[in-house]
Every structure is written in C-alpha cells, then in structure tokens.
C-alpha cells in the first residue's frame, strides 16, 4: 500500500472515521493509484500533494465524520484551560516571589530544654504546655518555607499538565477542509 494511502488511513483514524469505511476508501484509492502508476500518472497528479487534507476533504464530503461537538463545548474547553493555566501561573509567581523574598514564616524546630507548644512569631511558650523534658516546638515564625516549596512544586506540575492539555487540544482540532 502506498505511502499516500497510509497517510490517508492515519488521518481517517485520527478523525474518527469508522474502520470499515476507512478500509473501503483506502482499498479504492490503492486500486486507482496502482492503475494510475501503471499509466505513468503519479499519486500527486491524481490525488494532490497533501494526503491529510485530501483524506479530510473526502471524509467530510462523504458525510462520514463523527458529529462535531456543539459550539458551546468548543468554547468552554479553552476557557477552562485558560483559567487553569492562569491559576497555575499565579501560584507559581506567588511561590517564587515568596521564596526569593527569603522571609520564612514557619518551620519545625527542636527545643531541647523548652516545652511542647505553639510559639507564635514571638517566642512565648504555649500556656498549657506539659511542664518539662526535651520537646519539639512548632514555630510558625519559620514554617512557610516548606509550604512555599510545596506550592512551587505543585504550580510547576500544574503548568506542565496545562501544556499537555493545550497540545492535546490543538491536535484534536480538525484541519481546515478544502472545498472540492
């Protein structure tokens, strides 16, 4: 089977043309191309230079493409994608700025001689803490560094996911179908 027919078959598969119809059209094209080549007529002369466009045009004219999504769905998906991408970008910027500012707000510290309790930005001990022994103190004054790293990590992952979604969305858009 010629490369032209293979590319048509691939395009029909991508467009969701039922396999039986795609096979039928591919077999018809292959027969015609075989006879044309025996007559000295190239595939390009007979069918044009763009197999994908030709295949899309043939399927569209025969009316065998699956129903297109409604205009509402077509509009909604980019809107959701735009919103998702924008939120991920904002979180990334926020986390990066907070980290660059270098002002951590909370972290876990160990206080060998102190008491277990929450110390708010001041170092005052928690009033109802147990009386003695080496304990860990949860110091909100240093806790934000890991939180911002986590935000940064999730923002990068989300942006990567958004790029993948955009790539999929652009690939799934049907090519322009030339008029006959």
């Amino acid at each position, binding site marked *: 089977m010629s490369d032209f027919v293979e590319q048509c078959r691939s395009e029909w598969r991508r467009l969701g043309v039922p396999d039986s119809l795609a096979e039928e059209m591919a077999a018809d094209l292959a027969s015609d191309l075989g*006879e044309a080549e025996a007559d000295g007529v190239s595939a390009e002369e007979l069918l044009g230079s763009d197999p994908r466009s030709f295949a899309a045009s043939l399927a569209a004219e025969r009316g065998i493409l699956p129903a297109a999504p409604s205009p509402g769905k077509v509009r909604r998906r980019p809107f959701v994608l735009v919103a998702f991408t924008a939120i991920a970008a904002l979180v990334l910027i926020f986390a990066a700025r907070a980290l660059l500012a270098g002002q951590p707000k909370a972290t876990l510290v160990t206080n060998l001689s102190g008491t277990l309790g929450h110390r708010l930005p001041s170092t005052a001990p928690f009033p109802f803490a147990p009386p003695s022994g080496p304990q860990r103190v949860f110091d909100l004054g240093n806790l934000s560094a890991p939180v911002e790293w986590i935000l940064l990590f999730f923002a990068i992952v989300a942006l990567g996911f958004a790029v993948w979604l955009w790539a999929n969305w652009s690939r799934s858009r049907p090519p322009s179908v030339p008029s*006959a």
Partner: protein
Amino acid sequence: MRDKGVGATMRDMVVGSQRRTELLRGVLDLCLLAVMNEEPAYGYEMTKRLRERGLAIVGEGSIYPLLGRLERDGLVETYRAASNGGPMRKYYRPSSAGRLALAMGVSEWRAARDAVDAVLAPVKVEVIHE
C-alpha cells in the same frame, strides 16, 4: 524590458490557468454525472475519460471528494464489480435524482455559456507585446 515582458506573459498564463480551474470547479459535478451517465465508471476511469476530452486539469484530488458529495446527496448509485479481471472497483452511475440534476445543470450551463458568449464572442483584441 525583455525580462518584464516574459514575466508578464508568465503571470498571464498563471491567471489563465486559475480561471480555467475556477470555471471547471463550478461544473465538474455535471461533467462527472455526464461521464458516468454514458457508462458506469470508477474514480480513476472517470479521470481518464475527462482528460481524454481535454479536461487535463482534472486531478490533484479534485474528483474524489466530489464523488463523495454526489454519493452523500443521493445523486449517484454505487456498486462493486471487478474491472477487466483486476481488483473489485467501486462503480458510479447517476441515480434518478442525479439524472434530473444533470438535465437541469446542462440547461443552466448552456444558458450561462450563451450569455457569456454573447458578450465575449464579438471581442477582437490585438495584443502587442513590447
């Protein structure tokens, strides 16, 4: 000056070719119906018959989508048969709706052709290339 003249001639040839393509595009469905009305034919066979009659610009994928449209619109019927001992081919012939469309289309074409002829036939232009 000579280069300019050659360039203009080439441009005129391209424009002329585009015009013929556009003119044919408007009546190619009629030509296909007419060819298969004479005798059922498969895709490449129709291309050959049209080329034999001077429509050499047929090709480049133009007739296959058009055959698909005619089939979708119910203007042609199809069946499968072996061609001269070769593989099974998809043959096309006009349906009754297709024959009606052909008759009406031919009538429209003749009316349009006569009207255009009435304007263009008397034209006599001498072209002098400098």
